């Protein structure tokens, strides 16, 4: 029988998606610990996640600097001793600053946990931010910032965030002078208030044995005490700017960075899954309309995409790309054209069913290993949602109609209120 190569093989829709739920352990000091156990590999990832403290515009860098400098010394260990001990056991120590939370992460072979955990305990409970290390940190950060500010996409992102989030922790784009506001005493105080059990969530994923739990309880259990001042993790409301258009001219630019969008809803809003589908159609995957038009038809760019971010105090919808400087205006026009089509013409059923399958496959594929299951939990837990969010999400993806996609576009892509940032030529 001749092989029929022009017709696609039969395929199956993605069925039930099973998420691994954690076991919760109470540490008796307000710190919540969640465990995702899977014994395939002899390794474990432990994340200590802390809510950022309320933003102080006069000292804007405290949250990020305290987090980044946790590896730089405790009263017992120097920065170099910390690095030596972690590296010697083949472990990885990361600090990660995010808009709402800051975290400290340890990746280690389970058998080396007993050797690496004491270092983590020291960092999290007893960091001292030595003056000399602070001076080095400031100088090196200032140098790196100078390089970043030469990148059009970075400048565009900073301008955009400032415009839609205002003078808040989300809108912060550090300037060289901001580093002058960093002082050791403030950092120590910030550290004491933020890095305490009642403001901490621990996520453990990987091969978890009884001895793993015993070690964790011993280090971060009842002997780890809260400080007298409760962590103030409240944040002021977002204040979008009045100006909606920002153009930073770079006369020698070969490409212009474009970033446009507006404040939007976050994951807690019932429309969020629907919005995600609309986003995918517009610019959320390789076959999206923005990619199909602006890259694959016009060849204006190497890549273009849209996305929605979900933060505690709100969200944002945005489109970002870098395009040939000579076609920047045309690219903006095409972006607006695609948004307009989404608002006025129903998405054909064929395209919508493709997006449905793509999104379900993508969700399934994102559950690669036990770490991914912990990541999925983080998304809902810190938004105050339960696992039914994922049930609702898959239900929406499976059943959403073209009319609903159009409603989302009309409701959330109000182009008259778009913030538009161009860095390069226009």
């Amino acid at each position, binding site marked *: 029988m001749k092989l029929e190569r022009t017709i696609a*093989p039969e395929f199956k829709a993605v069925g039930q998606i099973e998420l691994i739920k954690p076991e919760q352990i109470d540490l008796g000091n307000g710190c919540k610990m969640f465990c995702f156990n899977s014994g395939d590999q002899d390794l474990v990832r432990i994340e200590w996640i802390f809510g950022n403290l309320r933003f102080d515009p006069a000292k804007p860098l405290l949250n990020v600097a305290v987090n980044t400098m946790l590896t730089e010394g405790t009263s017992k260990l120097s920065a170099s001793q910390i690095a030596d001990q*972690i*590296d010697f056991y083949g472990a990885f120590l990361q600090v990660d600053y995010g808009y709402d939370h800051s975290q400290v992460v340890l990746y280690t072979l389970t058998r080396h946990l007993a050797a690496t955990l004491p270092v983590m305990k020291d960092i999290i409970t007893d960091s001292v931010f030595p003056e000399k290390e602070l001076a080095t940190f400031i100088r090196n950060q200032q*140098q790196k910032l100078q390089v970043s500010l*030469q*990148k059009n996409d970075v400048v565009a992102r900073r301008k955009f965030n400032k415009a839609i989030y205002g003078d808040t922790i989300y809108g912060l784009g550090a300037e060289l002078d901001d580093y002058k506001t960093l002082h050791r005493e403030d950092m120590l105080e910030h550290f004491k208030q933020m890095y305490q059990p009642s403001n901490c969530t621990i996520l453990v994923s990987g091969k978890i044995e009884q001895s793993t739990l015993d070690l964790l309880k011993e280090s971060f259990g009842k002997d780890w005490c809260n400080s007298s001042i409760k962590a103030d993790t409240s944040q002021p409301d977002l204040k979008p700017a009045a100006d909606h258009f920002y153009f930073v001219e770079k006369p020698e630019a*070969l490409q212009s960075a474009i970033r446009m969008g507006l404040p939007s809803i976050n994951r807690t809003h019932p429309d969020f899954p629907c919005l995600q589908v609309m986003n995918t159609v517009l610019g959320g995957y390789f076959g999206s309309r923005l990619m199909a038009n602006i890259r*694959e038809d016009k060849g204006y760019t190497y890549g273009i995409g849209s996305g929605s971010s979900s933060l505690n105090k709100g969200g944002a919808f945005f489109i970002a790309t870098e395009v040939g400087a000579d076609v920047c205006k045309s690219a903006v026009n095409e972006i607006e054209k695609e948004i307009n089509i989404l608002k006025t013409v129903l998405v054909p059923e064929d395209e919508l069913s*493709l997006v449905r399958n*793509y999104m379900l496959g993508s969700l399934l594929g994102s559950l690669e290993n036990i770490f991914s299951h912990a990541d999925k939990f983080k998304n809902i837990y810190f938004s105050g949602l339960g696992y039914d969010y994922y049930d609702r999400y898959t239900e929406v993806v499976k059943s959403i109609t073209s009319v609903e996609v159009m409603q989302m576009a009309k409701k959330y892509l109000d182009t008259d209120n778009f913030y538009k940032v161009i860095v390069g030529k226009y």
Partner: protein
Amino acid sequence: MVKFNRFTLDNGLRVIVHEDPTTPMAVLNILYDVGARDEDPDQTGFAHLFEHLMFGGSINIPQYDEPLQRVGGENNAFTTNDITNYYITLPASNIETAFWLESDRMLSLAFSKKSLEVQRNVVIEEFKQRYLNQPYGDVWLKLRPLVYKKHPYQWATIGKEIKHIEDARMEDVKAFFKKHYNPQNAIMVVGGNVTTEQAKQLAEKWFGPIPAGEKYHRNLPQEPTQIEARRQTVTAKVPLNDVYIAFHMPGRLDNGYYEADLISDILSRGNSSRLYKTLVKDKQLFSEIHAYNMGSFDRGMFVVEGKPLENVSIEAAEAAIWEELEIIKQQLVPADELTKVKNKTESTMVFSEMSLLDKAMNLAQFELFGDAEKLNHETDKYLAVTAEQIQKQAQEIFRKENSSTLIYLAA
């Protein structure tokens, strides 16, 4: 330990199957044994441009991405100086779609004019975005030709210049396909929730009928031994000075490779590494400094790169780097420090087994090196390296006459 089964089709296509029933997903990874090193010096950037064209439709399937997305799959590809690698991840129940798509484009492309025209533009924008419109973005366009005078590693995968991409013609595209894209020049890895039986049956069905094509025999000009130090200084619109010192080092399969790789870890991996501790923290000469090797298949490049602080002269910065290199040449690495970098290599290997796609790509690459099983002996190769061997390799690599220094001066 990554287990696998292996078979070869009559047309020469090598197939490896890694069964992993713990995931609902599957991957199909195809490595083509062609990279930028196989290009004509007057048509550089072609292997990479060609990679883009592989997504422009094949002989029986007008659209590559669309049917894959429809079954919940995703794909991507990358080109290096040595190889071109394509991969698909999708729900395992739809694995046949991956076989269908990949076999059709191995059979023949559609060679659409529109696709060539558009992808030329897309690649030119990629050239601008990654190499020209970024501070220090053009470093590889300058450093490679300084280090390599004969070997085709002298150009980056993106190509020497935009004009080479603009000039690409359909007849060149067709000739490139014929020469490199056939079963004999490819290695396929199927991984995830599939059985070897199933993979065998699907491989026979979809790839079996593809003509074997001609085997490409690589015969590249070899790089002569460098005999004098090279140096280039450029003044550029960058905010900070930057120092690059590149050395020739053993290729991926040559003796001495593992030593060289561990040397880069000793010098620069993590905050406990020598260059970071000494030059960033103690002596306060650099804001950042890195040492790495490119993992090239032929004789490769060992690069030390650092941005000196504003009050530090280029001469002082270079001297400080050389001082560290002299130490590793003259003194045996202490036992604890050697254990440290070996432990890191070992745990990195365990962590990489968390990813199905990483496992598939690694199997393909080691099969290209002669035997996929080598992947499972990789850690042992690192563990066997001695302090004496490290010293000997450091002495061979870190010689002035083996160095090419590129200085960026902030305008």
